[in-house]
C-alpha cells in the first residue's frame, strides 16, 4: 500500500481548536444587530380545522413585531410533491404550526403565543398505517385520496425507483424449496436527536434579497429548492457548523421557512431555534416501516423470490419519503442477490409529526422489517446468517435498479474478506450455536449473538463541483460548499488537496459554506463525502497542478509533466535540489484556479456489517448490549480517528439502540408524543457503553485517486436487526417488536401478558 504524507495518517481536525475552546459558533451562538426572535404556536390537536384565530392581543404586547397566521404567510410549498405550507387552515398533527410570532426577546415572543386565541373544529385522527388506508379513514389531504402519497414524482429524476419488480415472481416461488411469510415492522419512530436543535437566522431585505444562516447538513439545498419557489429572489445560504444532524437537518425548510416569513414581514433578521420539546415532538422522525413479505428460498440459502407490500408511515407529510423509499428499494437488492422480485411500497400519511431523512435513509427502516422475514427462511434452511449475507451481498457484475430507476452493474469489490475478518474479530464461529440457541447461560442471564448487513450505492451519488485556488505564497483554497456536521469531512478534503499538491496541511483551507463563493454542493450525505465530493476536490487540485506546471515548465525548459511540486516549490522530477517557489512565476498578483467535477456513479456500493452480543436478564427482561464489532472495507483510510468516530456512531442517531430502548412514544388517544424531553426519551450514557471494535479493510478501489470509499452514513443501519436476532437467539424465542424493552422480553418469555402498548 502506498505510504502517503497525509492520507491514512491521523491529523488534527482543522476546526479542533475552536471546538475544544468553545469558540465554534453554532447557529444559536450568533446574534445580528436588530435581531428578532421567532416562536411558533403549535396545535394541541392531531387533526382539526382552524375555525377562527385572533391575534389582536398578541400584537398589542410591547416588543411584538409580527404575528402571522395561515392567512398571511407566503404561499411557499415544501415536501414531495409540494404540499406543505408554512401554516395551513388545517392542522394534521399535534405540534403543527398555527401561528408565528417575532418579538424583541424570546420571553416576549413566548408570552405573545399565550395571547393568541384559536378556535378549532376537531376532526378524527388516524395513526396506524393500515388504518389510514382504509376507505372510511379520516382524510389528511384533498389531493392525496386514501392518504397515499403519489409515486409519480421527480425526486431522483423522471424514472425514480418506486418498486422492485424483476423476473418472474411465480416461477421464483416454484423454484423454492420452501416459502416463509410474515409481517414485521419497525415503527418505534426514534428520533436521531442531534444535541443542537434545528435553528436558523433569516434576513429578508428589500423586495428580493434573502440571506439565511442555517444549521444544516446541506445549506445549499435550501437555496436550490426554494430560490425559484420564492420568485427567483437573490438567495444567499450560509452554512454554520452543525451540532449534529444524522440526516435530520438536511432538508431545513421546516425551520427555515417560518423565520424567512417573519423576516419578510418585519424587515429584520429573525432567529428561530427549536427548543428540545419541539425538536422531540414536532420535528421529523424516522419512517414507520411495516412489511407483509414472502420469501422463497432453497436449502442452501439461495433466495429464489421475494414479494412484499412495504407500508411506509410518513406521518403528516412527505419531506423526502419517495426518495427514501427509492433508496431503500435499491439497498434491498444490494443485500439480496435474488432474481425474482415483486416488492411494492406504499407511502401513507397519518396524524403525527412527519418522518423525514435520517442516516440510513429508508434503507435502515426497510432492513429492520425485511431482515426478520429473511431470518425465518435462514432458520428453516438452518443457514448461518453470516454465510447467508456473504453469499447474497452484491458482487461485481451483479445488476440492480438504483434510485434513479436505471439498471446499474456493480463495479465494486467483493466484501467477503471484510465479512470473514469481522467474523473472526468477533469470534462468530465460537459464539454462534445455531438459530434460537443461546451462546451461553449464566443463571438467569442468557447471551446471544446476531449479525446485520447494510450498504448503499450512494457513495458516488450526485454531482459535486469544486474549485481549488492556488495562491502565490504556496497555499491552496478549496471552494466547496460542504458543511461540517461532525464527520470531519471539511478537514479530510484538505488532506486530499494537501496530498495532491504536497502542501503542508496548514496551507490548505476551505472557503466558508457560503453559496456566494462556492459552486452548488448538495452536501455530505449518503456517505458521498469521500468518493463524490472528494472526487471533485481531487480533480480540481489536479487541474490546478496541471496549470501550475504549464506555467512553470518554460522556466525549467521541460515539459509540464516532468515537474513535481512540494511545499509551494516546483522542481524537475528526480532533481529536487533546484526548486523554484510558485510565486516566481505566479507573481504576487496571480492565482491559479483549478476546476473539478464529479458525475453521479451508482456502480460502487459500500458495505457495513455489524455483529452484536447481548445479555438478556430473563428475570427482569432487561437487554444489555455487551459487544459490538463492525466490519467494512473502505479501500483506503483517509483519517483513522474520523473513521472510527463514524463507525462508533452506529450506537447513536437512532441506530442500534432503536432496537433496545429508543422510541418516540405516541399516545394514540390524544395524538401526543409523551416523551418529548431528554429524560423520558432514552439515550445511552457513558456508563453503559458496550465493548466496541472494528475490522477495517483497505482493498483499493481503482476508481478513486486514493482508492477510497465513504461509509459514514451506513454505520448504524445493520445494527437494529442484528440486536433482534441476538435477543431471539439468547432467549430461544423469536421476538421482533422494536425496541426490545423489558416488558416485551418478559412477554415473549411468557412471564407476563402482552405489554399494554400492544393494544
Amino acid at each position: 500500500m502506498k505510504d502517503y504524507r497525509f492520507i491514512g495518517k491521523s491529523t488534527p481536525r482543522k476546526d479542533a481548536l475552536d471546538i475544544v475552546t468553545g469558540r465554534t459558533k453554532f447557529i444559536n451562538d450568533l446574534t445580528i444587530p436588530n435581531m428578532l426572535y421567532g416562536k411558533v404556536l403549535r396545535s394541541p390537536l392531531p387533526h382539526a380545522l382552524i375555525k377562527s384565530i385572533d391575534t389582536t392581543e398578541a400584537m398589542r404586547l410591547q416588543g411584538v413585531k409580527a404575528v402571522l397566521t395561515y392567512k398571511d404567510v407566503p404561499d411557499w410549498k415544501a415536501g414531495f410533491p409540494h404540499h406543505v405550507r408554512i401554516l395551513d387552515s388545517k392542522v394534521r398533527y399535534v405540534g403543527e404550526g398555527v401561528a408565528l410570532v417575532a418579538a424583541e426577546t424570546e420571553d416576549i415572543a413566548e408570552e405573545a403565543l399565550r395571547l393568541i386565541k384559536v378556535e378549532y373544529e376537531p376532526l378524527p385522527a388516524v395513526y396506524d398505517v393500515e388504518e389510514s388506508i382504509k376507505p372510511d379513514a379520516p382524510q389528511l389531504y384533498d389531493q392525496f385520496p386514501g392518504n397515499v402519497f403519489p409515486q409519480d414524482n421527480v425526486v431522483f429524476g423522471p424514472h425514480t425507483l418506486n418498486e422492485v419488480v424483476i423476473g418472474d415472481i411465480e416461477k421464483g416461488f416454484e423454484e423454492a424449496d420452501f416459502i416463509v411469510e410474515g409481517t414485521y415492522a419497525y415503527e418505534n419512530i426514534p428520533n436521531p436527536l442531534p444535541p443542537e436543535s434545528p435553528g436558523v437566522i433569516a434576513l429578508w431585505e428589500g423586495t428580493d434579497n434573502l440571506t439565511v444562516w442555517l444549521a444544516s447538513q446541506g445549506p445549499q439545498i435550501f437555496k436550490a429548492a426554494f430560490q425559484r419557489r420564492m420568485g427567483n429572489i437573490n438567495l444567499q445560504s450560509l452554512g454554520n457548523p452543525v451540532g449534529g444532524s444524522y440526516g435530520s437537518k438536511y432538508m431545513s425548510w421546516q425551520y427555515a421557512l417560518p423565520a424567512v416569513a417573519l423576516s419578510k414581514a418585519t424587515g429584520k433578521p429573525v432567529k428561530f431555534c427549536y427548543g428540545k420539546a419541539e425538536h422531540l415532538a414536532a420535528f421529523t422522525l424516522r419512517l414507520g416501516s411495516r412489511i407483509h413479505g414472502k420469501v422463497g428460498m432453497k436449502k442452501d440459502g439461495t433466495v429464489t423470490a421475494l414479494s412484499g407490500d412495504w407500508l411506509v408511515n410518513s406521518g403528516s407529510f412527505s419531506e423526502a419519503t419517495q426518495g427514501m423509499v427509492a433508496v431503500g428499494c435499491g439497498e434491498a437488492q444490494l443485500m439480496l442477490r435474488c432474481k425474482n422480485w415483486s416488492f411494492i411500497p406504499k407511502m401513507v400519511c397519518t396524524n403525527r409529526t412527519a418522518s423525514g431523512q435520517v442516516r440510513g435513509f429508508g434503507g435502515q427502516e426497510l432492513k429492520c422489517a425485511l431482515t426478520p422475514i429473511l431470518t425465518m427462511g435462514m432458520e428453516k434452511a438452518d443457514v448461518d446468517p453470516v454465510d447467508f449475507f456473504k453469499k447474497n451481498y452484491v458482487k461485481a457484475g451483479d445488476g440492480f435498479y438504483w434510485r434513479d430507476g436505471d439498471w446499474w452493474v456493480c463495479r465494486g469489490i467483493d466484501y467477503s474478506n471484510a465479512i470473514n475478518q469481522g467474523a473472526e474479530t468477533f469470534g462468530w464461529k465460537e459464539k454462534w450455536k445455531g438459530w434460537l440457541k443461546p451462546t451461553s447461560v449464566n443463571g438467569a442471564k442468557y447471551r446471544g449473538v446476531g449479525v446485520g448487513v447494510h450498504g448503499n450505492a450512494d457513495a458516488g451519488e450526485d454531482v459535486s463541483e469544486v474549485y481549488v485556488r492556488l495562491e502565490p505564497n504556496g497555499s491552496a483554497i478549496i471552494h466547496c460548499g460542504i458543511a461540517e456536521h461532525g464527520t470531519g469531512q471539511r478537514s479530510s478534503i484538505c488532506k486530499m488537496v494537501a496530498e495532491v499538491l504536497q502542501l503542508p496541511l496548514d496551507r490548505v483551507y476551505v472557503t466558508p459554506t457560503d453559496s456566494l463563493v462556492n459552486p452548488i454542493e448538495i452536501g455530505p450525505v449518503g456517505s458521498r463525502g469521500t468518493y463524490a465530493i472528494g472526487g471533485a476536490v481531487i480533480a480540481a487540485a489536479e487541474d490546478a497542478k496541471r496549470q501550475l506546471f504549464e506555467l512553470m515548465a518554460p522556466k525549467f525548459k521541460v515539459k509540464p509533466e516532468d515537474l513535481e511540486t512540494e511545499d509551494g516549490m516546483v522542481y524537475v522530477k528526480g532533481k529536487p535540489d533546484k526548486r523554484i517557489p510558485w510565486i516566481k512565476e505566479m507573481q504576487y498578483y496571480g492565482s491559479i484556479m483549478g476546476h473539478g467535477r464529479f458525475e453521479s456513479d451508482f456502480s460502487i456500493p459500500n458495505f457495513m456489517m455489524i455483529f452484536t452480543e447481548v445479555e438478556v436478564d430473563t428475570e427482569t427482561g432487561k437487554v444489555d448490549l455487551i459487544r459490538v464489532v463492525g466490519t467494512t472495507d473502505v479501500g483506503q483510510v483517509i483519517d483513522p480517528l474520523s473513521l472510527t468516530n463514524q463507525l462508533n456512531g452506529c450506537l447513536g442517531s437512532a441506530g442500534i439502540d432503536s432496537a433496545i430502548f429508543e422510541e418516540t412514544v405516541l399516545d394514540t388517544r390524544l395524538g401526543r408524543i409523551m416523551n418529548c424531553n431528554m429524560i423520558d426519551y432514552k439515550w445511552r450514557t457513558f456508563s453503559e457503553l458496550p465493548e466496541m471494535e472494528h475490522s477495517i479493510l483497505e482493498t483499493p478501489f481503482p476508481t478513486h485517486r486514493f482508492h477510497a470509499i465513504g461509509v459514514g452514513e451506513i454505520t448504524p443501519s445493520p445494527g437494529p436487526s442484528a440486536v433482534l436476532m441476538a435477543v431471539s437467539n439468547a432467549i430461544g424465542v423469536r421476538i421482533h417488536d422494536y425496541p426490545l424493552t423489558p416488558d416485551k422480553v418478559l412477554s415473549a418469555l411468557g412471564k407476563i401478558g402482552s405489554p399494554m402498548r400492544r393494544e
Partner: protein
Amino acid sequence: MTLTLEKSSHSTLTLTVNGEKHSFMLGEGPHEVASSHTLAHTLRERLGLTGTKISCDNGACGCCTVLINGKAVQSCMLLTVECEEKEITTIEGLGDPVTNVIDPLQQSFIDHTAFQCGFCTPGIIMSAKALLNENPSPTRDEVKEALSGNFCRCISHYHVLDAVMAAAKKGGNQ
C-alpha cells in the same frame, strides 16, 4: 446572599466568571438579569460566553456544564441570582489566559479527535475537568461514571475516554 429581589430595579448582581467580575442590573429589561434567568442563559446572552451550550435546557444532557467552585454543575438548572459569590469557570476560562496555551485536557481532545460535531464537547470537557480536579488518576470506569450525565449523539465516547485517560496520564498521575 444579601440581595433583595423586591427592589429588583435598583438591585445589582455580581458574578465572578473566569476570574473576572461582572455586574448586572436585576430586572426584566433586555439587558438585565431577571430572577427567572438560568446561569446558562446569562452566560450566553449577557456575557457572550457561547461556549456553554444549551441542548435539553432541562438538566438531562450536560451540554451546559460549567464549574462552580471547581465542581461540575449544569448551568441550565441554576438561577443566575443563586450564583453570586461563587467562582464560575466556563470552557472559555480553561487554559492559561496570559500565554493563551490551552489546558492539557483540551489538547488531549484535539490529539484524539475526541469529538465529531463538537456541540457537546465543551460540556464534556468541563465534566472531565471537574473529575480530574478531584481525582487526578481516575480509572476508565471512573471517567465513564463522571461523564454519565453528558449526552453525545455522534458517539465520540470512546475517543473521549481515551483523551481523558491520556490527559490524566500526562499529568504524571499514572
